[in-house]
């Protein structure tokens, strides 16, 4: 199979500030993200041939027309994608495939989420499938990921205190990066002690181990490399795309170790193969990954092959993933600080990689930025949808 490498280019992107947008509707956010992307790509709405909308918490109310209406994309095809925290990346992936297939040569992908109108803390999730028997443990995301943290500490012999301290450093790093980002939801630095002493949400995870719940939107304009050359010099090429779905192995199979997430390994494997990456620790210059919780980012280091199994702590302690480290991760603050409007997050990650690869990331610009990676993880351990995307500068 030929794969996606160098067959699709990103020529424009937009991203709103993420946060609690009490004064903005989903429509406002979509318009802001789309028009920044149009401006960046030097196009107008009339140039778009097809569009994909990522929007997760719709509860049956959203269709592609939600985007058509907001942007007045008259009578062109719009497909809505919903795939948990991978929603935006999967919308992007499908758009890429349509361009690579030669059906279109200029399309829009937009992800949006308006969570803060829900009137609840955390995500407005139902605990079980609609109309189910509702006997499954009422375990929202913090609990599910916390169970991996408990097992990781046990498996690798970390005391509770050591484990907490290790995870805290991830939150501190992401807050430091977020403080350099004017579009991030949270822009304050925090200390390790603050993280450790914060109230427990789901043991061992405390408040600062958990990412923000935010409103926001992000958008990308995609085209063929041929057309991209005519549009701008600093377009970005898609090098690899991987998507993997678990089938509840972690609960159904009693030997699933819960100290890694196989979906990440599988999705990264596909993306690495397409991109021709053999040694991710050396070849990838920066990564923007799904740090919904600090433990998730730790496991991602190992599952993406950035750190050897069981040894992420050493890389965390040495600052390997800091902005000036060997492999900067979540340079924009990550979900932790940039915020997590679920249906927009994947495109926000791509936005950061796009800006870094163009050398336009301002105060948080990393020194070497030729190959960047984004990673999303949606769902529960053993039942994840994982998306990995790899991008490169034009040769």
């Amino acid at each position: 199979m030929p794969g996606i490498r160098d067959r699709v280019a990103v020529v424009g992107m937009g991203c709103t500030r993420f946060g609690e947008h009490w004064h903005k509707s989903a429509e406002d956010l979509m318009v802001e993200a789309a028009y920044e992307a149009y401006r960046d790509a030097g196009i107008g709405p009339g140039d778009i041939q097809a569009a994909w909308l990522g929007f997760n918490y719709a509860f049956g109310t959203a269709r592609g027309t939600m985007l058509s209406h907001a942007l007045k994309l008259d009578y062109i095809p719009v497909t809505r994608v919903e795939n948990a925290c991978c929603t935006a990346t999967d919308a992007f992936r499908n758009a890429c495939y349509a361009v690579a297939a030669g059906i279109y040569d200029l399309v829009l992908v937009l992800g949006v989420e308006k969570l803060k109108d829900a009137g609840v803390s955390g995500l407005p999730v139902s605990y079980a499938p609609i109309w189910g028997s509702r006997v499954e443990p009422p375990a929202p995301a913090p609990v599910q990921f916390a169970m991996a943290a408990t097992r990781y500490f046990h498996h690798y012999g970390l005391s509770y205190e050591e484990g907490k301290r290790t995870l805290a450093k991830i939150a501190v790093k992401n807050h430091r990066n977020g403080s350099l980002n004017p579009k991030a939801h949270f822009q304050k630095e925090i200390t390790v002690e603050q993280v450790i002493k914060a109230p427990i949400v789901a043991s061992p995870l405390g408040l600062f181990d958990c990412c923000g719940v935010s409103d926001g939107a992000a958008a990308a304009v995609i085209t063929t490399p041929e057309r991209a050359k005519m549009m701008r010099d600093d377009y970005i090429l898609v090098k690899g795309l991987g998507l993997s779905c678990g089938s509840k192995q972690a609960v159904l199979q009693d030997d699933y170790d819960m100290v890694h997430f196989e979906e990440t390994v599988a999705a990264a494997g596909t993306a690495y193969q397409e991109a021709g990456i053999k040694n991710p620790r050396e070849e990838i210059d920066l990564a923007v990954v799904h740090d919904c919780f600090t433990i998730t980012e730790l496991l991602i280091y190992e599952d993406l092959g950035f750190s050897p199994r069981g040894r992420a702590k050493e890389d965390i302690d040495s600052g390997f993933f800091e902005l000036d480290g060997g492999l900067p991760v979540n340079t924009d603050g990550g979900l932790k600080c940039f915020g997590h409007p679920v249906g927009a997050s994947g495109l926000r990650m791509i936005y950061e990689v796009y800006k870094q690869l163009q050398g336009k990331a301002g105060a948080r610009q990393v020194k070497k930025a030729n190959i960047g990676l984004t990673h999303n993880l949606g769902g529960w351990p053993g039942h994840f949808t994982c998306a990995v995307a790899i991008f490169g500068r034009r040769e």
Partner: protein
Amino acid sequence: MLILAGITSYGAYIPLFRLGEGTAGWSGGLERAVAGFDEDSITMAAAAAVDCLRGADRKEVDGLYFATTTAPYLEKQGAAVIAEAADLRSDIFTVDFANSLRSGTAALKAALDAVRAGSAGNVLVAAADLRIPQPRSEFEPLFGDGAAAVMVGSENVIAEIEWTYSLTHEIHDLWRPAGEVFVRSSEDRFATDEGYSEVIPRAVAGLMERSGLKQDDFACLVLYGQDARKHRQMAARLGFGAGTRVQDPLFNKVGNTGAASVLMTLAAALEESRPGDRILLAGYGDGADAFALRVTGEIEKIGVRRGVRGHLKSKKIIGDYLTYAKWRGLIDIAPPVRRPPLDPPSPAALHRERDQNIRLYGVKCNKCGCLQYPPQRVCTRCQARDDFTPVRFSDRRATLFTYSMDYLGPTPDPPLVVCFIDFEGGGRMACTMTDRDVAEVKVGMPLEMSFRRLHTVAGIHNYYWKCIPSRD
């Protein structure tokens, strides 16, 4: 000639928690067993039934009689849920005995009659009560929560029921009208003089007359009592000598467990009995039922069970009265965080999943041997389709693989402990842990399964299994 019939097995269930010395804001003195927030008469009866079924062939049970005054449903049978949780056959006779403290012994009498009449080989009687005393009422120091079960059959009888005598007696001594939570009572001297003190002696005398037995023939007296003093006075008044052991009704350890009380006392008596012992059992409530039982040599062959003695070995004192009041719904507390209300379960889904949810059936793949819960259509390991054997996980032990304590979770007993557990012999389950001490929860701890009420939404009590720290 009547068929020789009697008790072939017994079991009990006493909740882990106690109100007692050490419970701030509680002045009841003696310890009182208190059901967890997720227990009710159905779950406790199911636990006692399963205890009674240890070593038994569950397919040999032909009936399940559930006795309680605190049925979770007024229209919908408790026995049907218990029979399902105990994994009994479906072609059996199930019935609820309700509305009287005597319903436990009434169910026993009916089971005996069914076996003697030949309409059933083995009938399991499970009695449980969770009577909520009005705070600071005379009943608060008395009532306890718990369950007991006996199997009635004609083979391998451990205690033959030789004689019975019943009488009915209309009186308002204790009552609870439909729609009310708390027990009402009439003036104590009237209630005792014209109720308990009037009826029990007549029932015992009636049994003696019918059987030709005398007080001296009994090694043990199992007597219902409303409280320790009345129980003691009645035992003295009935004329039994020093050779008759008056079985401790557990008022100082468990409390008065209502419809289950006298059967729990009987289970405790059987734990101490020897072949040849004769036991007099007398239950009270709107009349009385008296039984003469004779313990057989089979009692020495009965297998290990937790029973009363085993359950009393583990307990936890509730830290404060407020916690108890929350668990019983006596005060309405705000949830920990703003969350949308729980959606009700789908009755169709509950019905469809009753084997996996209530019987706790998983499956074993016939191709690769992988045990999995809940049941799958396609094997998680080898992808074989529809080639499984059902496996009951409810009586398997387990260990804690991993967990988290959710401090914002929807539970009256935060934090909510959510777990992955691994069953002895294979298989894994995601479930919640209850009856736990937060300080004791750790990876690898031994666990067992316990049938609980998860929540009640739209009037549906959603029953399911949770894990608990092993009570052994």
